[in-house]
């Protein structure tokens, strides 16, 4: 009996509040008094990748820091699928009311360039700011006969067609690094599970792998993996990678690395974008975020980029990747 009563009261309460909700919802739109944006309800950031991955942890750490700046809660909504395209599409389908943003990397754009999807990723989303810029490195198993870039190229020359490089997406930035770094001499092989790729490198089933430094730092520390080359402008300062040559030193142009940023959709109020950008800059500069970035090895490249810089970098990426993969 008690249960029924409780249910009844709850139902009644719900009905009343629902009616009230419909009544005043019309008036609570954006309130842009004298150009200042005021945050009234929770902000949602859509993450096109699943819980637990690099993209997800980045945006969650960012969201926690951003909450303190905005004064309202910031929630992350994971909409994964189709290499990120599903999430991008969902974000674009939401009303551009200044409360919905998208976290994205160049991967969904690459899916468009390579023809995997017809969705106009590049045209539909606009860069707002960059949070972090990760890099890629080439690693090999401890027992492989080459220890640095020079020895590797000699080995490739002596054994043409033998060396393969494991990547996570054949149309991704890691494959772009293989393509730009080795031309046709090393064939990329796609893996669906990062764990399998790492195990295959250590077990000697695949010769090389193009991965992010954080994922393999434990294996480098234990000596199970050797780093051959970092796809960066300068040498990395991470433990065990200080003496590894970087792409610029050996004269290669393969600097692609996942840059994770926040994007907005067409029609988002100007004032909201400005307010978000200002708050995001403070959030990225906060100690919590910076400490996390350092621990994840994400402090190797400049992370924060404002709207203008990020837009320029995004457009440049689009041009370079279209040249490499465009049909």
């Amino acid at each position, binding site marked *: 009996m008690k249960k029924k009563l409780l*249910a009844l009261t*709850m139902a009644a309460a719900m009905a009343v509040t629902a009616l009230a909700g*419909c009544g005043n919802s019309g008036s609570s739109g954006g309130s842009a008094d004298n150009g200042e944006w005021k945050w009234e309800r929770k902000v949602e950031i859509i993450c096109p990748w699943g819980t637990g991955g690099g993209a997800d942890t980045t945006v969650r750490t960012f969201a926690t820091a951003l909450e303190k700046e905005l004064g309202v809660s910031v*929630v992350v909504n994971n909409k994964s699928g189709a290499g990120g395209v599903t999430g991008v599409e969902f974000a674009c389908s939401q*009303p551009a009311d200044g409360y919905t943003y998208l976290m994205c990397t160049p991967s969904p754009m690459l899916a468009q360039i390579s023809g995997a999807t017809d969705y106009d990723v590049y045209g539909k989303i606009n860069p707002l700011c960059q949070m972090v810029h990760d890099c890629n490195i080439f690693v090999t198993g401890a027992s492989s006969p080459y220890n640095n870039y020079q020895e590797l190229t000699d080995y490739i020359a002596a054994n043409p067609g033998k060396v393969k490089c494991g990547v996570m997406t054949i149309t991704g930035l890691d494959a772009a690094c293989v393509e730009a770094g080795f031309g046709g001499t090393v064939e990329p092989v796609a893996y669906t599970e990062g764990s399998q790729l790492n195990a295959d490198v250590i077990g000697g089933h695949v010769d090389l792998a193009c991965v992010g430094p954080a994922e393999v730092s434990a294996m480098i520390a234990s000596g199970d993996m050797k780093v051959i080359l970092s796809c960066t402008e300068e040498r990395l300062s991470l433990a065990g990678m200080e003496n590894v040559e970087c792409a610029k030193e050996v004269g290669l142009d393969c600097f692609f690395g996942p840059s994770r940023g926040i994007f907005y959709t067409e029609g988002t109020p100007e004032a909201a974008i400005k307010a978000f950008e200002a708050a995001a800059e403070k959030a990225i500069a906060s100690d919590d975020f910076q400490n996390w970035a350092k621990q994840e090895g994400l402090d190797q490249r400049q992370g924060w980029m404002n709207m203008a810089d990020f837009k320029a970098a995004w457009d440049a990426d689009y041009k370079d990747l279209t040249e490499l993969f465009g049909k």
Partner: protein
Amino acid sequence: MDIIFSLILAIFCVYCFFLVGAESPASTPTELGAAFWPRIILVLMIILLVVNIVNSLKAQKENKSSLLGEMNLGGFFKSKLFVGMILVAVMALFMSVIGFMPDCLLFLIAYGFLLGERRIPLLVIRSLAITAVLYVIFQGALDIMLARGVGPFREFALFFEMLLPF
């Protein structure tokens, strides 16, 4: 019935066989290509479906049953089963439009009615309570962003999200 199903499936497989070839580039000496694996499956499937059709035809000759078997199509469309299927399908299709809460509520009422509950007020109250419980558990405690719907339904859902204490 089984024969028709097998036949449709077999024709569909043949279509897929050619479709997947048109969709993907040719294989290279070191890469089998995207069409290789599905084609093996499709060929095996077509063979087995033909075997199945032959088997069923044989069995039918022995039993002298009609092509549709004992299935009564007219009765099927009036049956509870068919209505149930429609309800499930409608629930799934409308979730993105009207949002989780209204969708859940309407489905619970409709399906409860289908299953023989005729005390309407009780049914409505019970459905409201269950919807509320599900909403609080999943949207609130487990932080799953349930579908909001579009237009006024979105406003409605947003309003409830603000009420949650989590």
